[in-house]
């Protein structure tokens, strides 16, 4: 690829907007805005492509940081991970589980447990595919992941910069939305929401022994979940990708308003699944 590839494309990005900010605007959320541009362009282009489109993605970098003094050395540490999520379902294919999305660079997502448990005062207690997180559809969205990390140091703080923590990754052509990104703390077995705005956390004080839960989005689904091949639904159940009552991945369409996107002449709006979690994290701290 060279600059000539850009020649047929003109992009008008008005100065002073989030897509072309003037200095000294902070731009730490650049990945999140880039996803926004991609999503909007995809939605518009889909109208010209007769449904040749895929469900939405996790919508940002999912930056998670825990930092503070390491009691073993007194040195300051920063534990930083950016969990991958599911990609969207598309015509004739389910989304992929927990991979860097096709709009991202080829970068890592999680660090090896053996390494981080030596480097930082943390213990990784779970890393798993997040069941029921893929958007329902004839072609299911890929699953996000769940990572549980216990913090073994006093006086640390958590910051998160993520999108799609309120509005889920939408489905297309009648597919349902994937689960939202969720980042929260489990303290003494109870959920604690570290900020009033999900996905945006700034220096939340972590208590030693807290468990950081990083739950990334699944991708949006493609097509009506009732059209899904029953054999695929059974395979999803056998793999644990979906649960019998969880509302994910094609067992049922789900309820509520989705984030509809036009889809050529198919035109059916997306639908959001029910949140699969038994209880939403509460505000605390």
């Amino acid at each position, binding site marked *: 690829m060279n600059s000539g590839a850009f020649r*047929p494309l003109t992009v008008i990005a*008005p100065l002073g907007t989030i*897509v072309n900010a003037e200095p000294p605007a902070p731009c730490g959320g650049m990945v999140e805005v880039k996803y926004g541009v991609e999503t*909007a362009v995809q939605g518009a282009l889909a109208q010209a492509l007769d449904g040749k489109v895929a469900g939405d993605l996790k919508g940002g970098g999912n930056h998670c940081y825990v930092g503070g003094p390491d009691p073993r050395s007194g040195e300051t540490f920063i534990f930083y991970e950016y969990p991958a999520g599911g990609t969207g379902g598309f015509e004739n294919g389910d989304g992929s589980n927990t991979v860097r999305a096709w709009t991202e660079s080829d970068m890592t997502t999680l660090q090896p447990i053996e390494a981080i448990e030596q480097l930082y005062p943390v213990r990784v207690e779970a890393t798993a595919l997040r069941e029921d997180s893929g958007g329902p559809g004839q072609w299911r969205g890929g699953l996000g992941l769940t990572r549980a990390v216990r913090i073994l140091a006093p006086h640390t703080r958590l910051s998160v910069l993520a999108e799609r923590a309120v509005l889920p990754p939408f489905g297309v052509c009648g597919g349902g939305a994937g689960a939202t990104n969720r980042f929260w703390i489990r303290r003494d077995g109870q959920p604690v929401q570290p900020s009033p705005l999900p996905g945006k956390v700034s220096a939340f004080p972590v208590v030693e022994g807290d468990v950081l839960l990083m739950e990334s989005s699944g991708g949006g689904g493609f097509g009506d979940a009732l059209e899904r091949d029953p054999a695929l639904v059974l395979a999803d159940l056998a793999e644990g990708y979906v649960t019998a009552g969880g509302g994910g991945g094609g067992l049922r369409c789900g309820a509520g308003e989705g984030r509809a996107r036009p889809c050529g002449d198919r035109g059916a709006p997306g639908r959001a699944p029910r949140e699969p979690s038994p209880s939403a994290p509460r505000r605390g701290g």
Partner: protein
Amino acid sequence: MRARAAGPLTVRARVAIAGDTITVDLTGTSPQTAGPTNVGPAMAPTGAFTIVKSYLDPGSDA
């Protein structure tokens, strides 16, 4: 520096195809914010190109 936004931020795109050219017009997108949800001049063309390339010409190198 602009005031903090009170609601969700919007990226608005109008895609026009004319002959062998595509114009992506992001007019109507939310004003820049005091927080970190902004990009400089490079990301919008990059994001738009990623989508156009991926959907219209996924196979070739250029």
